[in-house]
């Protein structure tokens, strides 16, 4: 061995030692105090930054949870209750039991049921169409069919059905983030409880016009006749402004209301087919 080895070991080793000392001092001086729990929470979030929780991204959501110290009022729609439970476990908190939700399109005014009276031309967004005119069928509450909701969906859970001209929600992909609810200028889309085995009953119409007027534009509109209200034993259905609404918290899926609806505006989803013969469609008890 010679002096080269000695010199290099000395110089580099000395430099390393010096640096370590400097590093230590700097580290002591500028300690950043950030709650490590924020990272803990963020790690467990899906990281889609979809904004479904109402905060600016997952990091912000995590910060707010840690700041609040409890999970009340916090929910991550894409992650669902599983994620919230994980966060709760990690933070040692109680998670609110969140029932899974799903987006529901409350309009059945397909091209057939509500035939178009006009041809729309121009910027192909619902926002513009809504500001311009009442809609292709003349129903001022119905779907405009330009697909703003589909564009807004970050989870590939929606598409426009070419034949009906209405958006369709793919339940498996829907995380109930609510982006489409915000995107729809007519508030047609609603977040409803997913229900057991994804079974749901809801009024697929939001038209508040009088029965006759609504009917003129659309065959399947809710005409506000109130038959379903009378039929419901659980006070789940309310009638306001010529429009029936089923409260998903009270509905027991007894399936009494759909058959009595004269226009077929009440939809059943994922329920087994009825054994009893349905004759409601021919029954024109009320025009």
């Amino acid at each position, binding site marked *: 061995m010679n002096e080269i080895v000695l010199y290099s070991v000395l110089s580099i080793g000395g430099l390393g030692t010096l640096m370590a000392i400097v590093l230590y001092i700097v580290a002591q001086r500028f300690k950043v105090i950030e709650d490590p729990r924020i990272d803990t929470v963020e790690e467990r979030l899906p990281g889609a930054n979809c904004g479904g929780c109402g905060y600016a991204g997952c990091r912000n959501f995590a910060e707010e949870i840690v700041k609040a110290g409890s999970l009340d009022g916090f929910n991550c729609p894409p992650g669902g209750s599983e994620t919230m439970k994980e966060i709760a476990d990690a933070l040692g908190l109680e998670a609110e039991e969140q029932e899974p939700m799903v987006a529901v399109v409350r309009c059945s005014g397909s091209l057939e049921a509500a035939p*178009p*009276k*006009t*041809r729309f*031309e121009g910027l192909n967004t619902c926002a513009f169409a809504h500001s311009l*005119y009442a809609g292709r069928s003349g129903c001022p509450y119905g779907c405009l069919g330009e697909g703003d909701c589909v564009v807004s969906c970050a989870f590939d859970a929606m598409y426009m059905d070419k034949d009906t001209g209405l958006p369709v929600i793919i339940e498996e992909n829907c995380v109930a983030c609510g982006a489409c609810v915000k995107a729809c200028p007519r508030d047609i889309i609603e977040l409803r409880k997913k229900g057991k085995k994804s079974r749901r009953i809801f009024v697929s119409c939001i038209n508040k016009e009088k029965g006759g007027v609504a009917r003129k534009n659309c065959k399947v509109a809710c005409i506000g006749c109130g038959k379903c209200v009378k039929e419901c034993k659980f006070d789940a259905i309310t009638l306001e402004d010529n429009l029936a609404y089923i409260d998903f918290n009270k509905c027991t899926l007894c399936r009494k209301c759909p058959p009595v609806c004269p226009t077929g505006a009440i939809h059943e989803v994922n329920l087994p087919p009825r054994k009893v013969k349905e004759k409601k469609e021919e029954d024109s008890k009320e025009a």
Partner: protein
Amino acid sequence: MSLLTVSGSPHVHADESVRKIMYGVLISLVPAMLVSFYFFGLGAIIVTLTAVVSCVVFEFLIQKYLIKGPVTICDGSAIITGVLLAFNVPSNLPLWIVVVGSFVAIGMGKMTFGGLGKNPFNPALVGRVFMMISFPVQMTTWPKPIPLNTQLTDVVTGPTALAVVKDGVGRGEKVSELLPKVPEYMDLFIGNMGGSLGEISAIALILGGLYMLVRKIITWHIPVSYIGSVFIFTGILWWVNPDIYVDPVFHLITGGLMLGAIYMATDMVTSPMTPKGMLIFGIGCGVLTVVIRVFGAYPEGVSFAILIMNAFVPIIDRAFKPKRFGEEVKNG
């Protein structure tokens, strides 16, 4: 009764379309094309045809098979790119190089960015600069003009007027000694000189420019500010030392300045949209052109100047907004 159409106002539209604009530009290119056919003969015609055909074919192939979108070769923009590309090369350029240049212009300069309207750089210039860097020998061998030449081979070659002067000055000769070696100014003006296909005749290019002005395809802002700033800048240099700097008129009528100022810099897609921005853009091009010509390594600076300024267009558009109506009250 048939369905009524509902749409937002306005319900009428001007008799104006992208296609009309593009074919207007093509028409305005005809005089310069005829001049180059006259001076460079058959070679010029073949180079132009090759460039146009290959540009259109490449655009078609890329749109149809690579992007798999609608084919829009009929809007004429690929034809313009082809013609302008041909205008920027010597008439004796090997045809395979022309084809490569067309591919670069369309594929790299235009389609990579998404096609018409989205390219930040002028496609023809991208193709030109690519060829310039890749094939410097072929791209700087300029044929001497022979009126109505039908021969394809054995053309006499020589340097452009700008190159003669730049080389000479570089060796320490005086401008006054060099000027006799280049064609007369009148010849330069008409186009009787060596150079790229379309850049030779200032008069034909100005004619085409006037036509575009009348048709309102371009506005006066870019050409005037470009040519004006070159004139003023070179004028100052000339005034400082006429021995090493050529007079401004010489700069105006040589080396593709007219072609650049009238056709290349005014390309709608790659130039600013507001009049104020256009003036800044033109002045920037002018100053850069002179800087590259006089102080740079290349005798010719128009292509690089315009490409560099193209990159600044988004910033110019942001920085120079039009003065809004009623923004600042000056009653009188």
